[in-house]
């Protein structure tokens, strides 16, 4: 094949590939990008969602955000939820993945355990919300029944700000752990056994091996799990909302819960859109920050 023909082939290939992007582009542009532009547009108006006309109000919606009732509670709850859920999920799933990975040791079939741990991840936020709402019930819930059986006092799970937030975090971590374990186990299987063998010959203890081989080698899977879990936490709507219903008052509504509140109950589309823009900015900043920090660590350890 001569050079001219090859260059021509390459060019047709690139052209066909460009065409292959078009369907994805059209769908995403029409139904994701345009609404995203619209939400920014609406956030500068006083639209109520019903009347066709809307007035431009500049940054008024944004300026009024801090004056919202319970604004601080909402922000604290949202960030605590995201950070708390990520920390618990990553720790539990990393330790479990390590325990499950010990090749050939133990009696329990690994694939079965992994599949069982994944079941909560298959349930919807709605289902998990309803289930845990029942489980946290003060008089009839199973959580308090178990506490009483082991001799502890019942806890009022869904009626105080701090405890309710913790209750939501536990339920959300319960869902996410299975997914993270699968990714961690995949990462662990990618580490060659030779490295450990060499380290053992050199006299490295188990703990040294964990911190200087396993953790650095797992950096890519840690990055992906941390980022997807935080993003998932900021995005979560049904699960926290259906467990707490915002109780007490509206204080435990997270940012997502507030958006739907202003859109559907209060009829303040403009105001709700300003909140939505803030949510997108928070997620974008947070994931970028995490990516920068974690990628840097990946580079150090290679």
């Amino acid at each position, binding site marked *: 094949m001569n050079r001219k023909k090859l260059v021509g082939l390459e060019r047709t290939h*690139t052209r066909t590939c460009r065409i292959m992007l078009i369907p994805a582009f059209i769908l*995403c542009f029409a139904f994701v990008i345009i609404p995203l532009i619209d939400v920014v547009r609406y956030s500068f108006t006083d639209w109520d969602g019903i009347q066709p006309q809307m007035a431009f109000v500049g940054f008024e919606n944004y300026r009024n955000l801090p004056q919202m009732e319970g604004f601080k509670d909402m922000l604290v709850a949202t960030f605590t939820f995201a950070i708390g859920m990520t920390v618990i999920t990553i720790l539990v799933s990393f330790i479990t993945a390590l325990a499950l990975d010990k090749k050939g040791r133990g009696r329990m079939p690994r694939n079965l355990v992994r599949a069982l741990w994944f079941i909560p991840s298959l349930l919807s936020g709605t289902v998990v919300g*309803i289930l845990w709402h029942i489980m946290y019930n003060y008089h009839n819930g199973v959580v308090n029944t178990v506490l009483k059986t082991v001799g502890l006092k019942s806890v009022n799970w869904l009626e105080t700000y701090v405890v309710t937030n913790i209750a939501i975090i536990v339920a959300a971590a319960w869902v996410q752990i299975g997914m993270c374990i699968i990714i961690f186990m995949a990462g662990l299987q990618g580490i060659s056994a030779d490295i450990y063998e060499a380290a053992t010959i050199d006299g490295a203890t188990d703990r040294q091996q964990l911190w200087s081989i396993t953790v650095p080698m797992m950096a890519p899977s840690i990055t992906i799990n941390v980022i997807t879990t935080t993003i998932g936490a900021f995005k979560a709507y049904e699960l926290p909302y259906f467990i707490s219903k915002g109780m007490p008052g509206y204080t435990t509504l997270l940012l*997502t819960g507030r958006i739907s509140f202003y859109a559907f109950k209060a009829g303040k589309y403009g105001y709700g859109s300003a909140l939505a823009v803030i949510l997108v900015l928070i997620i974008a900043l947070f*994931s970028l920050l995490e990516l920068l920090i974690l990628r840097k660590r990946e580079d150090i350890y290679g």
Partner: protein
Amino acid sequence: MNEKKKVTPAVIIEEFILFIFTIVILSPVLYMLLGAFKKRSDIVKHPFQLTKEMFILENFPKAVKNMNFWKALTYTAIITVVSLLIVIIVSSIAGFAIARAKGRLFSAFYGATVSIMVIPFISCLIPCIAQATRLNIYNTLWGCIAYEAAWNIPMAVFLYTGFMRALPGELQDAAYIDGCSTFKVYSTVFLPLLAPVTATTAIRCGVGMWNDYILAKCMLNHVKYPTLMVAIYAFFGDRVNEYGLAFAGIILASLPMIIIYIALQKYFIKGIVAGAVKG
């Protein structure tokens, strides 16, 4: 090989802790599973027991009737299957192009796709409803499918691109030398290799579509086009008293995804390994 048979106290303790952990994680599922076959009073008094005297079956037929199960199942299945087909076709083609062509356009497209993945649907809910009303697709199945598909494409493109980048480039070169067109390379050389990543996409996106509440709730009238999650919340979400009934409804609505997951688990994990960890 010798190590395999060695059972030290440390291993036994580790196994025991793992076993306890697994029981703790599974206990809510167990509680729900047992509860679906009991009366409310038995669920409250004996959460983790199921004796012959407690056993009842009537929660299931009652839940089926209350939440209009068969109609909701049909609509949920239609929305999920059609959206998923669109997502798989569109994203595998785009993923192939990104993984197998050089140029700024493709890396920019990939970057944009990955950035879109972080946007929560709920933040665009208001404009989506306004747009659907403008386009006359509000309260239609196609409207719901369009948004469901579009919002899942970024994740699927990400998975497919990662998977196809990991495939050897010689595959494609050989096919070109044989005189194949680009599309033919995609359809005859790459498509047959995509089973694992398609399983991953089907589970990750499909479970999301099946479990979707907010889009179906806002886009569709729940009497005309009920979906499972909307029906569950409508009947068992607020001030639920019949725990057993709610559990039966939840199990019926979640079982299809669990069965599909078990069937596809082997491929799903292969696809995760290639797509997420290396990509």
